[in-house]
């Protein structure tokens, strides 16, 4: 009997101890002021431009930016070559140039297959599987590989026992192994494995619906004001034919009011026109009762009648139950969800494709990007409140993607400028700068004497008025020969190129490659010719004039050996085309498609850009400390942060501390 009694007592003591410990844990006070040990706070506002920033500061709209510039320092920050976010942030992360970290563009190419591919991540399915009936069961997990090379500055800090918090830095998916808290940013896919695929249900699908990229249009037929359809999720790799996993849902609209009801799984959603639902958790069943994958999405009732239009966001990875690694430690995403609710986990949450393809109008897009910004501000409050010591990095994408889409509102010379729309939306970009200013204000309130604050952007912005079809130009100049000229605009992804008679090609936003013998599978340019062909193309590009106004199209042409160093230099483009302000590579040319004209007006809402000559679109750096360097660059940031903690930079870092 005494044995039983002691067992009960032990159980009771263990249970009570565990309960008390958990209550203490749950109630621990989180909202204290920053402690006094060394701290470095870096706020990364993507795409904040020095010209616009100075203008808005002069107008008195940005008191905290102005205070920082006055009390500390403010300079342009030299960006990467080319000035593209994944390249620029990789420079920031590693302290190297692209030759060292291996990210040269959003888009790379496989010289064997001559197919454009993502530069930042590579996904591979499970190599070992077993078939049971109609199911294919993987015996090992698939892999998602971050292609950026080089040690990140925060892992070096952690090696020296400096705690780190890294919030959504781009080019960090999957997040590098880290003892600190991090969540992945740009490069994080949606649940379909894409960079964001929206769904659009309408009873009047647009004629070009098959051309739409970044989303899928599903035609629906309303019977008695209702319809049934499916939310399309990831491929079900457990089935041999890998069909899409789907979740059926029903929609009814009111016969009179502009309202509708959506019934999905066990959830009922009532929306009025132009209204967003909250995030909805959706569970895609892969093997009944055994295996499923969860995601999150939001519904937007764009229009009820006369045309019914229902938009659904890309299905994001569920932070409360992530299907892919998006944070370190792995439960950090869940912690963020527990304290802040659901949030966009996809790398580029602003749905620019929906606006570009006419699924959104500017009002819709603005409301969507406000959702993104509000979520980000909510997350900032929690994450910053949680920060006590070490390094804190926080990233905001809204300043970049909104500038891309609303630049024509502040640029009267832009071909897509509409003065009526501009009255309504000209204030969007400055308002976003004000939001960034608000974040700085919250940090300044808590700043103590031992903390270094760095506010920076990866690049600036410029108008994108004219689209340059580089591959069409190369074809016109005789560097590319097509197999079938009559199908010049029909066949995509270089599939119409006769490689045995082509000397050079463009891939990505700034890259130009020779079709080099021994490197490309059907290379024709030999090593002896290489320099002369490159010289010739570079000279022609620099002489290129816009037939519309006579302006220079290309400001600079960079040769890889002059700008890059490191072990990945062999993968670099042979030439990097630095377009003049106002000009950029067209969407078509980045992936190897051809058009009839080599240059044309850019009528896409994507009206501002930065994939130009690096010297024309620098970023910004502001700090509460005075900068010693007169020409700070992005790759100086990693050595600077390390130096703030008294840590020497790595040997392969090319940058230098700026303080």
């Amino acid at each position, binding site marked *: 009997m005494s044995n039983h009694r002691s067992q009960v007592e032990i*159980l009771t003591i263990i249970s009570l101890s*565990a309960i008390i410990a958990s209550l203490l844990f749950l109630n621990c006070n989180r909202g204290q002021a920053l402690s006094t040990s060394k701290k470095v706070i870096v706020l990364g506002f993507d795409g904040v431009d020095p010209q616009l920033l100075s203008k808005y500061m002069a107008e008195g709209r940005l008191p905290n930016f102005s205070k920082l510039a006055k009390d500390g320092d403010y300079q342009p920050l030299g960006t990467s070559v080319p000035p593209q976010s994944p390249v620029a942030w990789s420079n920031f992360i590693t302290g190297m140039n692209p030759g060292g970290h291996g990210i040269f563009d959003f888009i790379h190419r496989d010289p064997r297959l001559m197919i454009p591919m993502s530069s930042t991540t590579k996904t591979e399915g499970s190599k070992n599987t077993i078939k049971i009936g109609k199911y294919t069961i993987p015996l090992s997990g698939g892999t998602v590989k971050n292609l950026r090379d080089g040690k990140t500055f925060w892992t070096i800090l952690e090696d020296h026992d400096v705690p780190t918090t890294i919030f959504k830095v781009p080019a960090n998916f999957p997040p590098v192994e880290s003892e600190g808290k991090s969540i992945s940013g740009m490069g994080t896919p949606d649940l379909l494995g894409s960079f964001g695929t929206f769904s659009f249900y309408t009873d009047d699908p647009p004629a070009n619906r098959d051309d739409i990229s970044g989303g899928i249009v599903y035609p629906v037929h309303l019977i008695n004001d*209702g319809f049934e359809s499916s939310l399309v999720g990831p491929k079900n790799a457990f089935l041999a034919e890998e069909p899409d996993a789907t979740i059926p849902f029903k929609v009814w*609209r009111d*016969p009179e*009011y502009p309202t509708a009801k959506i019934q999905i799984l066990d959830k*009922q959603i009532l929306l009025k026109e132009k209204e967003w639902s909250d995030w909805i958790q959706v569970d895609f069943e892969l093997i009944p009762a055994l295996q499923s994958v969860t995601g999150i999405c939001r519904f937007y009732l764009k229009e009820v009648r006369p045309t019914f239009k229902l938009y659904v966001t890309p299905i994001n990875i569920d932070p409360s139950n992530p299907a892919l690694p998006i944070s370190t430690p792995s439960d950090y995403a869940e912690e963020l969800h527990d304290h802040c609710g659901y949030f966009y986990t996809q790398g580029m949450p602003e749905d620019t494709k929906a606006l570009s393809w006419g699924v959104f109008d500017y009002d819709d897009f603005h409301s969507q990007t406000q959702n993104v910004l509000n979520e980000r501000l909510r997350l900032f409050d929690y994450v910053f409140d949680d920060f006590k010591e070490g390094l804190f990095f926080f990233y905001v994408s809204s300043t970049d993607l909104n500038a891309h889409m609303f630049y024509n509102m502040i640029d009267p010379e832009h071909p897509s400028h509409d003065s009526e729309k501009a009255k309504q939306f000209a204030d969007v970009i400055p308002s976003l700068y004000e939001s960034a200013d608000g974040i700085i204000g919250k940090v300044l309130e808590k700043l103590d004497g031992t903390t270094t604050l760095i506010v920076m952007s990866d690049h600036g912005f410029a108008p994108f008025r004219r689209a340059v079809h580089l591959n069409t130009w190369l074809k016109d100049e005789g560097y590319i020969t097509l197999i079938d000229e009559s199908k010049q605009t029909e066949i995509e992804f270089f599939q119409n190129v006769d490689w045995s008679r082509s000397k050079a090609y463009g891939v990505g936003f700034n890259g130009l490659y020779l079709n080099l013998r021994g490197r490309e599978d059907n290379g024709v340019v030999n090593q002896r010719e290489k320099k002369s062909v490159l010289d010739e193309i570079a000279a022609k590009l620099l002489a290129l004039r816009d037939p519309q106004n006579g302006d220079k199209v290309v400001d600079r042409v960079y040769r890889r050996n002059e700008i890059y160093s490191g072990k990945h230099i062999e993968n670099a483009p042979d030439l990097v085309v630095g377009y003049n302000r106002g000009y950029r590579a067209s969407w078509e040319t980045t992936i190897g498609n051809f058009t009839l004209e080599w240059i044309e007006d850019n009528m896409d809402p994507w009206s501002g850009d930065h994939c130009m000559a690096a010297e024309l679109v620098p970023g910004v750096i502001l700090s509460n400390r005075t900068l010693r360097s007169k020409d700070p660059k992005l790759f100086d940031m990693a050595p600077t942060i390390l130096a703030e903690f008294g840590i020497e930079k790595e040997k392969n870092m090319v940058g230098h501390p700026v303080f």
Partner: protein
Amino acid sequence: MDIINSILNPFFKILFYPFANMSPVWGMLVISFLAGITMLFIFKATSDQAGIKKAKNLFKAHFLAIRLYRDDLTLMMETMKNIVLGNLGYMKKSLRPMLFLIVPVAIIIIQLGTRYEYRPLRVGETTVVSLTLDKHEPGSLNDVVLELPDGLSLDIPPVRIDQLREINWRIKIERSGVFDIVFRSDNKTVKKRLQVVDSLSPLASRIARDDFQTALLNPGESSLQNSSFASMVSISYPKREFQFLGISIHWLVAFFVFSLIAAFACKGFLGVEV
């Protein structure tokens, strides 16, 4: 079913009363503990305790035989067979008390479910309230009028679905309290309770007319009257997330784990053979 519920509800209301304003974990821990003890007593009273003890002793003897005679294959096989047969016999002896346990366990689970499956609404939240018009009701959806008390407001115009004879409203919660929503059609009225409270209250997510299952699973509120113009009224309460020691678990799993721990911890000094 409403009569049974009217007897059971006050009993469980008293049982949960001390924990109404505490963390939901405490109510679950204590009720599970009491349920575990109760199940032990029922098991003891309805099972063949001597037979179970004998069966367990036989198991011990068979396992001892396996350890002692591991070199004798014939004896090993014989012992294995006896273990399987003994196991079947043990299960047979457990069957009777299990049958006696089904009803009280089901009642406890239903009462827990009304408190732990959903949580009450909070100020600032919205919810969907739906009413299904009875198929024999001559009126149309347009005749149904929603009357909201102070503290609740209509958020957007309703969605009426003729095909389903259903009308849906989105209601915004402006203050806490227990509210009666009134639906009116001609001179008839239907009421549905909506709870915006911090306490652990029994919630009825739906009430129906002539529907045994709905009445069984929603004991917190009476069924709709047979003369009602509605066949069903529902409120979308949010799912309650049950956490123990910071870990999210389903409340049903928590109940079974806690009650089993209590039962196994107490079976010794209560002298119950399980």
